[in-house]
């Protein structure tokens, strides 16, 4: 394998699919042409190869869906969003304490942990840039929603089976022993719904990538 070929392979190491294959072949052929041209103009081979390599040092901006973003600002946005959802869930589940459910406590812990991480990140004022792929995060988003929906449906079915299975089986009328048991049942039904904070938090990741995008063209010459 020629030196330029392995160099270009290295540039594309992170991106492997058919869309990039064509770009990869194109870049390689142009670098080979540049090398040949430089040698013809009197450079020795080693310098020519080095010059060709230096002319393109990253392909991140050419990958479909890739956006250059201010990473720190993006992470802050995501954490803030998650914090808001968790705090809302925590407040909503406060009444659960009465029936001895710990969901509320767990959420409080989550709020504190995410809150601390958020504050630490906010103290970091460095301007860092990096590439994130909108398509990739959209796919993640879909998968997380799908799994959450499956989890939610199974939880609700299981709870229903636990509470009302025997009523259905023996065709007995449904009987709830007083308001406490009713509240307990409601709390148990509500608990799986609380986990919606996870897909909701992930839902806005692609949106935040776009929002924190570095104004694209102007930066690429650097």
């Amino acid at each position, binding site marked *: 394998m020629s030196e330029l070929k392995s160099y270009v392979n290295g540039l594309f190491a992170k991106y492997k699919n058919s869309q990039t294959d064509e770009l990869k072949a194109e870049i390689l052929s*142009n670098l080979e*042409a540049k090398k040949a041209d430089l040698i013809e103009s009197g450079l020795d081979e080693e310098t020519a190869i080095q010059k060709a390599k230096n002319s393109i040092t990253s392909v991140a901006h050419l990958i479909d869906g890739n956006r250059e973003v201010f990473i720190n600002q993006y992470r802050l946005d995501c954490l803030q969003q998650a914090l808001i959802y968790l705090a809302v869930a925590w407040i909503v589940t406060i009444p659960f304490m009465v029936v001895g459910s710990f969901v509320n406590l767990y959420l409080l812990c989550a709020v504190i942990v995410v809150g601390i991480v958020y504050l630490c990140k906010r103290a970091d004022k460095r301007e860092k840039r990096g590439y994130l792929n909108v398509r990739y995060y959209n796919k993640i988003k879909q998968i997380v929603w799908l799994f959450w929906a499956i989890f939610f449906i199974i939880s609700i079915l299981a709870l229903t089976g636990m509470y009302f299975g025997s009523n259905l089986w023996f065709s007995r009328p449904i009987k709830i022993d007083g308001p406490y048991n009713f509240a307990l049942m409601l709390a148990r039904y509500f608990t799986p719904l609380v986990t919606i904070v996870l897909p909701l938090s992930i839902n806005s990741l692609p949106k935040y990538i776009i929002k924190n995008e570095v104004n694209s063209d*102007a930066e690429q*010459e650097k």
Partner: protein
Amino acid sequence: MNDSISSDLIRGHIDTMIMRVLSDGDNYGYEIIKAISVNSGGLYELKEPSLYTSLKRLETGKLIESYWGDGSQGGRRKYYKITELGKSTYKHSVSEWKTAKGLISQLIERGNS
């Protein structure tokens, strides 16, 4: 080109510069860079990362199209060809530039004009 102020001014016209080169005939990446360098009398050199960004944008906008052809030294090369849409966009950009050039001179130059 060394000073960055100039490349700031030029950046918005890279697409048009490439379309101009392709108006003279189909061409591939490295030769486009060379042609632009020659057109500038050696004063401006288009950087590879900007070239690929521009080519991608132009192709997505259907202003140019590409095909694979054989290069002189064996390897296959990706050639670009300007489309009819590209030709009319190019003409439009040139006349826009002419207007802007006059206007900007009028706005920023003092005295002897």
